[in-house]
């Protein structure tokens, strides 16, 4: 367990302390606290993608649809059902879950490129629905909604309190992810990723496992999306668009897919980087695009993955503990590249 891995525990603690102090650090370096919240939430979204790419071996490129469904689910439930804070998040997660249930069956029998293409296409369907039903969703103008009070406490969370609440959510998601990855279910996913045919010969219904992984991933994305909608108090169709999917996939790969902390690192670099770049250069899409290209060509294992490679080449005996720290689970001769 995490207790047994001291390295992991200490890293997590250090990270936690830094994140707890962010509200003091951020303004000093010219970042609004809401950007830090954005980093945490996109880290969760990237982890959802990580589950599929890094631990199951499938390509999800329409995942932003679930992110957006979460945001709209929260927004619509606030506007029309007048629910509270936690309820709106739960309803957002349910919306994503239902979305995944609807398109899952189409994706199941396909793998590789087909899976990716289909997911992009179906993701776009949800995008158009958000655009089309203007009367309900506000269409292209998006929908404004107020942050409801937290049930039981009767308080509306302000920016800094909201950040801490999101930090709690983030921590819970990280722990949950770790537990998931170490569970028998998680190990089955890894087996499927490594060699699906072999898994099938062992009698596993790989389709079903992948479907469940997709559902879990969708729920995580929905959580991230609902919280993000609550952060900016707005939901809009571009959240569902495949460009947003591409950004989230980049965060995962940049940080290192198949690793625990990779998505978080990727989210930090992407969100903060975009914030800085867009302030200084109007043509900041060029360095962003270049980052995609450089990452794919030079850093396919992402930052953590490449670091782990460098590290384990030199400290042979310790390699497996390092791997456990990085991936969250132990396994022998594993290729990080999906």
């Amino acid at each position: 367990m995490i207790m047994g891995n001291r390295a992991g525990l200490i890293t997590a603690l250090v990270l936690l302390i830094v994140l707890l102090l962010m509200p003091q650090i951020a303004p000093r370096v010219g970042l609004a606290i809401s950007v830090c919240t954005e980093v945490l939430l996109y880290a969760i979204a990237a982890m959802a993608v990580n589950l599929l790419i890094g631990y199951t071996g499938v390509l999800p490129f329409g995942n932003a649809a679930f992110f957006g469904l979460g945001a709209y689910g929260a927004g619509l439930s606030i506007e029309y059902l007048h629910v509270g804070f936690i309820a709106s998040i739960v309803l957002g997660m349910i919306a994503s879950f239902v979305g995944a249930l609807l398109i899952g069956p189409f994706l199941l029998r396909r793998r590789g490129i087909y899976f990716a293409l289909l997911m992009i296409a179906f993701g776009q369907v949800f995008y158009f629905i958000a655009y089309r039903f203007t009367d309900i969703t506000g269409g292209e103008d998006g929908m404004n909604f107020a942050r409801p009070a937290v049930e039981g406490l009767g308080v509306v969370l302000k920016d800094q309190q909201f950040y801490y609440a999101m930090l709690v959510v983030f921590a819970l998601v990280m722990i949950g992810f770790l537990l998931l990855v170490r569970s028998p279910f998680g190990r089955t996913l890894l087996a499927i990723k490594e060699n699906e045919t072999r898994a099938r010969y062992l009698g596993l219904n790989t389709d079903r496992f992948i479907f469940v992984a997709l559902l879990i991933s969708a729920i995580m994305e929905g959580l991230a999306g609902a919280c993000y909608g609550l952060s900016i108090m707005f939901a809009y169709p571009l959240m569902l668009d495949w460009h947003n999917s591409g950004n989230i996939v980049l965060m995962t790969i940049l940080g290192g897919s198949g690793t625990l902390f990779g998505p978080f690192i990727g989210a930090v670099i992407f969100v903060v980087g975009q914030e800085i770049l867009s302030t200084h250069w109007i043509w900041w899409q060029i360095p962003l695009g270049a980052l995609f290209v450089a990452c794919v060509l030079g850093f396919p294992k992402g930052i953590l993955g490449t670091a782990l490679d460098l590290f384990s080449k030199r400290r042979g005996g310790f390699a497996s503990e390092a791997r456990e720290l990085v991936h969250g689970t132990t396994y022998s001769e594993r290729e990080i590249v999906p």
Partner: protein
Amino acid sequence: MAHIAPEIFNGLILGAFYAVVAIGLSLIMNLTGTINMAHGSFMTLAGYLAFALVSAGTSYWFALAVAPILTLIVGVLTERTLIRPLYKRDPVYSLLLTFGLSLIAEETYRLVWGDNGVPFSPPVALQSAVSLGFIEFPAYRLFIAGVLLVIIVALVVFLQRTRVGLRLRAAVQDNEMIAALGTNTQLLYMMNFGLGILLAGVAGVLASGMLGLNPQSGNALLMPAFVTVIVGGMGSIFGAVAGGLLIGLTISIVTLYIPAASEIAMYILMAVILLVRPRGLFGEEGIFG
């Protein structure tokens, strides 16, 4: 009800358009597993190059011939430097890399030619409507239809009747074997990619005369092209043509009766076809699952 004939005609032409773009995408995907999210950017590039040529004083016809070739050169350079390293890897990487390229491309077009788009028209000779008896139809669209038909026929001839075409088809089936038989697969991949981009280039110049030419115009055609590939079936050129025509017709007819649904119609069509034929209409067994 009298409207349906022109609608069908329109739909077929639109469909031929999607087909040409989809064929280019499909060629690239089938052989090397590369998902080219920058396909639309290449189309836009061809449009802008044609605009630049015409602005410099050449005729439209010259631009139509030369711009796709220039785009082809850019495409081949891209393939050799950026895409080749990805062939052995998972398709997610080509997705991401070409996505990144499309971002760079769009911003570059903005910097060079401005944000607002540039005016690009077909030559005056093609700018009027021609009376076809049952309707008045834009001469330019008839011209496009003609060009697309020529392209599709030429492509089929190329693939079925020439040695290179034969090798391409063989490589799609089994590229280890063909390498073992002595073919230079790297060269083949390059030609294949180049062909796909050439098609994109021609489509791009044609499209620019009909639609606006601005930094995003290529992307609008990218999604329908992907849907066409899915509907028609991966691995099949014939499928791409059939899929394109089917989608073009569907969009046109739905637009006539329920305009609000015309965009979503192609996705619904895709879903329905996938339920009945999970590989798409003419999808080939074993290619990318």
